């Protein structure tokens, strides 16, 4: 038994050793309030405005009950904006299941929205009407 316990202790040390040498802690903000900002383009302008950030850009298509992508896993970084280029033929709501939750209102036409996740985790982006999980953001 004692030896078994010693082994647990060794495994513990090994694991915590790994942990400390692993990726650095996310740049800790004291208040992890996530924020969503939206910049809606007029429906007439076909080309979305070029985004100035270097983060992810994801294309989103909503046509009636067809939404794309479906269940795509996307790597993202804590605090780095993710740009969504949305093309939709109807009103839609995107639910962002971050902690705390966020919501994006989508109007018909082309629009660009940015999304920032401030807490690490897997964040699902769900189109409310069809209840389709479009994205799983793996935020580190």
């Amino acid at each position, binding site marked *: 038994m004692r030896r078994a316990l010693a082994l647990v202790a060794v495994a513990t040390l090994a694991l915590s050793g790994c942990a400390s040498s692993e990726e650095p802690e996310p740049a800790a903000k004291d208040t992890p309030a996530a924020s969503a900002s939206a910049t809606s383009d007029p429906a007439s302008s076909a080309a979305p405005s070029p985004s100035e950030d270097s983060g992810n850009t994801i294309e989103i298509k909503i046509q009636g009950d067809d939404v794309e992508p479906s269940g795509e896993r996307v790597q993202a970084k804590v605090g780095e904006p993710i740009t969504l280029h949305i093309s939709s033929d109807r009103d839609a709501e995107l639910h962002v299941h*971050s*902690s705390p939750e966020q919501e994006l209102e989508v109007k018909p036409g082309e629009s660009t929205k940015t999304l920032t996740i401030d*807490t*690490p*985790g897997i*964040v*699902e982006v769900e189109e409310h009407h069809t*209840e389709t999980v479009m994205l*799983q953001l793996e935020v580190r």
Partner: protein
Amino acid sequence: MVFAHGIGGARDLPIPAEFAIAGASAALAISFIVLALAWRNPRYDAATSGRPAPVGLTKLVDSPVFQWTLRILGLAFFGYVVWAALAGPDLLVNPVFGVVYVLLWVGLVPASLLFGPFYKAVNPLRTLNIAFSRLVGSDPDHGMYEVPRWVGYWPAATGLFAFVWLELVYPDNTYLSPLRLWFAIYIAVVFVGSALFGSRWFERADPFEVYSTLVGHLSVFGRRDDGTLVLRSPLANLDGVVPGPGLVAVVSVLFGSTAFDSFKDSNSWLRFTQSTSLPVPWVNTVALLVFCAVVGVSFAAATTAAPPREGVRRRDLPALFAHSVVPIVVGYMFAHYLTYFVETGQQTLIQLSDPMGTGADLLGTADWQVNYWISMHPSFLAVTKVLAVVTGHVLGVIAAHDRAVALLPKRHQLTGQLPLLIVMVFYTVTGLYLLFGA
């Protein structure tokens, strides 16, 4: 904001592969070390073991004032939540969802680990049964009938399956009417049963009490057969789990459903369910059943592989070993639900101040802020999760070993344990793999 889809925000990141591998290797190695080096005669006997608790503690715990205080607190909280469920808004800001899926379902694990059979002490239906019996002048402990022996824990296993189905499969589980219907049936079955069979019915049929009492056997508080309150190690206490028909089903549902919960959140399963033309709730129901059945069948096969010593029936072996899965269940539950419990639990405490959604602050918690410290430290979280799973595994293997040397004939004692050991390693490695593949 109104969300149609579940409670709780972000989920945990997958644990890094090297953590999963380290955990799995440790589990494997420790298993065989226990088998090779541990004692050859049973050490645990819950009927007599433990150190009697201090007199003051025994007096307090057994005093009617203490017992009634807990019952009344349980009943008051139950009434408060029923009020929210019946009169509150059908929105996720209603605390009833967090109370059911987080505080009750997940919170009963740490509460029982700390205090023993916690839910039994506060179970509002037990209190209603006592009140009802006083009213009609009957004995709350003895009903009109005895529970037939073959019934065992099957009602609780059924109830637990019904709950995990609601939690994990039923798409509208965060709307009030399905939740009300579920609890109406639960209250009817458990309360009417207690009138017919007496308070023993709770120990067999109330899914939350059965679950809590099982986990409570991993606390340091136990009772000997003569009722003495004792303090003893969780492993010695675990020996006191009362075996019976359906106990294997109970632990299989608990473990299988948690594994299914991890699995259903994986990207491949998500993509499959969103692209298939099959009816998804049915697909998930079948998958949930398969997960629970794989646990139950593999456990029954492994525990009956070797013949027991004389005087023990071979078909009783799975139930006699079932207690050893409890630490594995608890370790995995801890890993799976830790963030959810801490963060959505805080959210629920905040919401509890405003059950009607009117901006009230009835309990003074309304302006609390959720602390996301655990989510902000993913490496710490991953290490904690792996340690929880491995600790649960080690306790399970030791409990199984002690039972094996009590039940198996001398010449089969080592070889007879191998199948169960392999199955336990399979559970643990699968659990770690699912945490890695999240």
